[in-house]
């Protein structure tokens, strides 16, 4: 069903374009700068500034990542298909020996590689500076944090590609991307928290934590916070998570689903679109 060659050709072109436009460099620099700044000032709530242990630092970075990475991924991918459609090159691509599935997969791989490059370079750079404070165990935790950041980014990239196949034009796609960011990053938790408080904690009972799995940003938060002994108690929503659902392998698998399912949905729609 897939020929690897056209997928690689598309992916290479997407990656090259982001590299050429200095997108990769710019976003990596932003991530590194924010990461270092937050690592330095992140402990100010506890009354001091300066680099702290891995746990506290990662907990601070999680908040940064939840805001920034979904936005970056959505902006990276929202015009992947609709942009080609609007500039007239989609017809040109599809008239070549290239299936729609190969085009979509090539786009995802190319943009995903660009996203991975920014995340690895940005947080890698920050990690080099922070590494000395962390020690061995801290570095492992930090690497896991970077890996989960990558999964979060790919999940939102996958959602962006879905938007890109559904939207009629770039403006609609851009608006949908921003709306999705608001929904998952700002509104969703607020609504859940509101429902929880209004029902004095009885909302949906034991099924409530499952709702957190329906938001990739929450999955990411829980995944990182629950695995850090010294910060687990700092978070409100995360504490409602029963141990069974807090298994990092389960959380990781859910994030993988958040990558695969929107991408599959994008393909299902795109293959029938005119």
């Amino acid at each position, binding site marked *: 069903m897939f020929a690897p*060659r*056209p997928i690689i*050709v*598309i992916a290479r*072109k997407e990656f*090259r*374009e982001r590299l*050429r*436009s200095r997108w990769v460099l710019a976003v990596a620099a932003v991530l590194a700068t924010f990461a270092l700044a937050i690592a330095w000032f992140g402990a100010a709530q506890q009354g001091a500034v300066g680099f702290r242990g891995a746990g506290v630092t990662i907990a601070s970075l999680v908040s940064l990542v939840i805001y920034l990475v979904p936005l970056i991924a959505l902006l990276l991918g929202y015009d992947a298909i609709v942009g080609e459609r609007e*500039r*007239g*090159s989609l*017809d*040109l*691509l*599809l*008239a*070549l*020996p*290239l*299936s729609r599935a190969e085009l979509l997969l090539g786009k995802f791989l190319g943009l995903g590689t660009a996203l991975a490059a920014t995340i690895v370079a940005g947080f890698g750079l920050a990690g080099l500076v922070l590494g000395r404070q962390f020690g061995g165990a801290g570095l492992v935790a930090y690497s896991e944090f970077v890996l989960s950041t990558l999964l979060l980014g790919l999940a939102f990239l996958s959602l962006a590609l879905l938007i890109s196949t559904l939207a009629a034009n770039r403006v609609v796609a851009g608006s949908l991307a921003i709306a999705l960011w608001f929904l998952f990053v700002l509104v969703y938790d607020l609504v859940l928290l509101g429902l929880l408080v209004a029902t004095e904690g009885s909302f949906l009972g034991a099924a409530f934590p499952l709702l957190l799995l329906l938001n990739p940003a929450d999955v990411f938060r829980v995944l990182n916070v629950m695995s850090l002994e010294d910060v687990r108690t700092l978070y409100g929503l995360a504490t409602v998570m029963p141990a069974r659902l807090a298994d990092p392998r389960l959380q990781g698998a859910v994030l993988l689903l958040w990558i695969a399912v929107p991408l599959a949905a994008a393909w299902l729609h795109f293959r029938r679109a*005119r």
Partner: protein
Amino acid sequence: MIEVQGVSRSFGPVPAVRDVTLSVRAGEIFGLIGPNGAGKSTLLRLLLGLIPPDSGDLTIGGVAPGGPGFRELRRHIGYLPENVVFYDNLSGLETLQFFSDLRGTARTACGPLLERLGLAAAARRPVRGYSRGMRQRLGFAQALLGEPRLLVLDEPATGLDPAGIRDFYRILAQLKAGGTTVVLSSHNLAEIQDRVDRVGLIRDGRIRAVGAVQALREERRLPLAVDFRLRPGARHVVLQALAALGDCRVDLGPDRGTVTCDPARRMAVLSILTSLGDAVTELRLREPSLEDLFLAYTEP
């Protein structure tokens, strides 16, 4: 090469192509002529299998678009969509190499192709700095990758300057000599009339006529006009002489006149006018315009 049988396609409630039957022979240059919105692009997209027809059958080289074997056939079809915009951050050469890779042809052909289209000097510059005509040339170069057996070109001359248009049709003629079949669309009958073997006139999604431009002209027998200048005072003499023509229309002013007649009568008109000595000067023959021809076939 191309067989279209009773093909229709609508977008929602809007019919774009209605019951089109058409055949394009291998090795010919076929022009699809019609105003904007006539259904030209939709018909071309149907041919390429980019959209399926609602009804009817079509085949290219015996293969149905989207059917088995069509993916392999796509390798041998060059396509240039209308108003395509390439990737700003890639150079012309990189753009061509990208499409060459997708088509599965050797990259070594890219440089010479750019040279052939007059883009060699700009090959390594980013496409965002290209003029409209240069982008169109790049698009054409892309369509020529891999020496296609069939070229489908949607409004290919758009944005080209007169020299560019001449170069473009010169290359088409070379390709035709090599056996390539070309289907191109245009809203400009005058531009393509001498450069295509046959045209299909399309309006409101229907093909109204197919044939060589000259054959269509002869079939419709649109009236031609002869304009001339009159010596003052010669009006009566001229009117009397032209009365012998019978079925022609004569309009005479104080110092100029026009005879409108069936094209078959042109010699009769000319011989009368030239026999009148210095009463008539400055003869000018006006063939029916191509716009007239197009409208004669497509007006309801």
